[in-house]
């Protein structure tokens, strides 16, 4: 059972790392600021989600598991709002230019 949980953790956290990597590659390769924002929020959110999912079997109790999920939800909220604030600033700058 323990082995099953541990291998799940390794698998999910590695998959999460792959998405963080993909998000970073997108950040470097995508042509304009707004497209880069897509790369940053979506790939990284999924990456963090997978890391959290992978760590859930390692949690020592339901409260610790809930703490992990809370971290993910707060990161989602902040990511969604900040992305839009940056997007708005980019649009304003494009209009001025």
């Amino acid at each position, binding site marked *: 059972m323990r082995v099953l949980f541990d291998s799940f953790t390794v698998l999910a956290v590695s998959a999460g790392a792959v998405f963080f990597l993909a998000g970073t590659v997108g950040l470097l390769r995508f042509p304009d600021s707004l497209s880069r924002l897509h790369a940053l929020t979506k790939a990284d959110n999924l990456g963090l989600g997978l890391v959290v999912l992978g760590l859930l079997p390692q949690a020592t109790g339901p409260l610790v598991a809930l703490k992990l999920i809370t971290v993910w939800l707060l990161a989602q*909220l902040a990511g969604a709002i900040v992305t839009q*604030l940056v997007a*708005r600033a980019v649009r304003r700058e494009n209009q001025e230019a």
Partner: protein
Amino acid sequence: MTAAMVLDVGLALLVVAVAVWIVAAGSAFAAVVGFVSFGLLLALAWARLAAVDVALTEAAIGSGVTGALLMTAASRLRPTESRSAGERPGAFLHVVAAVLAVLVSAGLAALVLIPASPAPSLAPAAAVHLPELDVLNPVTAVLMAYRAVDTLLEKIVLLLALIGVWSLAPDRFWGGAPGLWPRSRPDGELTLLARLLPPIGIVVGIYILWVGAIAPGGAFQGGAILAAMWLLIMIAGLRPVPEIHRQWLRLVLVVGPAVFLTVGFAGFFLPNGFLSYPAQFTKPLIIVIEVVLTLSIAAILGLLVAGPPERERQR
């Protein structure tokens, strides 16, 4: 090389790389963005040095609150940037500065590489009285008991800085409200965040304050979180920035240092004198001081970011 060592080397290189970027960046705004990430990376370095209390303070104050302050300044000062490009010092000064910097760095590096042996430490001395203080976090014990006078003076420094900032306002704005952001229309998304996040931040901030007695955390870290929530509400325009002549505001600003000082002077009636606590009340007294200090710290940090008054006092 172990995995932890790889992590440390990578982190140290990243910290230095971001520092180079801050010095070399083309625009001040880009440098400030670099500074915010520098603070967060530095917080990770502190955690790797087993100093979690400092890591929290660095992330909250060194990166977060300072970053907010510098970002406003950078956007306001943007028109002045192109002009100062012509004032760059010549090659000679560059060389002199580089030589000086390398010398200082080399001296510090030598100190690091040739450490004193045995390493000086006050940890055993700090550990001796921890049980009677009933405060399990040694850093909080140092801040609130052993070196309480430093902490008290630091509060006074914060207050003096705020008085200094306020006194830079033009006379006609004295007593009025700080301008905060040069933004008239609140953004929809920001308002949404300002409605949802502050209650969560209050729970987290009070938790960080409370846990400071037994684990990393304390008045500064908790106060910085509360200040950030207050700033978020004000920037989103959900509640006004208070006018600085308000009695309640000034009361909140001084209540922390005042209570601390009162307890400190009450120590004169005890064997150890100034800033010593009566044995049986040590923990409750420390908690009371920490709570009022947190309130004052949150208010002062928020108002330091908000800056001097920029609007006339409403009659």
